[in-house]
C-alpha cells in the first residue's frame, strides 16, 4: 500500500485523535496533526466541545 501522509491544520476550535497504535492527542487552532498511514491504520477523530470546530485536511501520497 502507498505511504500516505494526512496533514490536518486546525483553523477553529480543536479536535481529538485516537488510533489503534495507541496514540491519543488533542490538537487545536494553529496545530498541525500529521499521520502516516504506513500499511494501514484505524483511527477516530472527533471535534472538541466548542460550538464551532474547523480544520483543513490534506491527504498526500
Amino acid at each position: 500500500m502507498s505511504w500516505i501522509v494526512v496533514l490536518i491544520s486546525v483553523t477553529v476550535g480543536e479536535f481529538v485523535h485516537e488510533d489503534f497504535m495507541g496514540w491519543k492527542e488533542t490538537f487545536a487552532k494553529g496545530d498541525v496533526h500529521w499521520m502516516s498511514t504506513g500499511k494501514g491504520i484505524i483511527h477516530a477523530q472527533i471535534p472538541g466541545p466548542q460550538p464551532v470546530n474547523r480544520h483543513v485536511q490534506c491527504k498526500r501520497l
Partner: protein
Amino acid sequence: MLRANKTPLIRNPDGTLMRLLAGQYEGQRSTIQTASPLLMMDVHVPANATLQLKLGRSFFVGTYVLSGTGTIGSRRVQPHSVASSRPLAAGPEDSTLSCKAGPDGMRFLLYAGEPIPDPVSVDGYFVCCTPEETQNAVTDFDRRENSFAKGKSWSSAIAN
C-alpha cells in the same frame, strides 16, 4: 503533532507572514517528515501587497483561501476558493507563483509538492498501486487481518 508555537514563521518586510507547516522554505524547515518533497504553509498577505512564492519547478500547487480576497496566479479568489495548478515552470528555474491580496488582505493554505511516479488505485479511503492491492486492503480491513490485525482488539474510546 506539530504545535502552533513550534511552527517556523517567515516574515517579509512588507508584513507578509508565512507559517511553515510541512517541508522547507527560505532556509526554514518543518519537523514533519514526508517521503517526497512537499510544502504546506499558512500564508497571510497584507492588504494590497504581493507575495512572489518560489516553488520547486516540478511542484503541483493547491491553495485554499481562508479569508480575504485577491488573486493567486491568474485566478481571482475569495474565502473558500480553491486554486490549483500543474507545474508552473517551463524552464529549468524554480516556479514563481504571484499572490496579490485585495484591500482586506488575504489568508490561504498552500499545499504543493512533487508528483509521485507510481500508479495509483483508489477505493474510498484505500489507496494502493494496483486494483488487486486495493481490493486486498479492503478485505484485510473488513476481516481485521494483516495490516489491520491490531483493529481486532481495539475499540475507540472517544468515538463510542
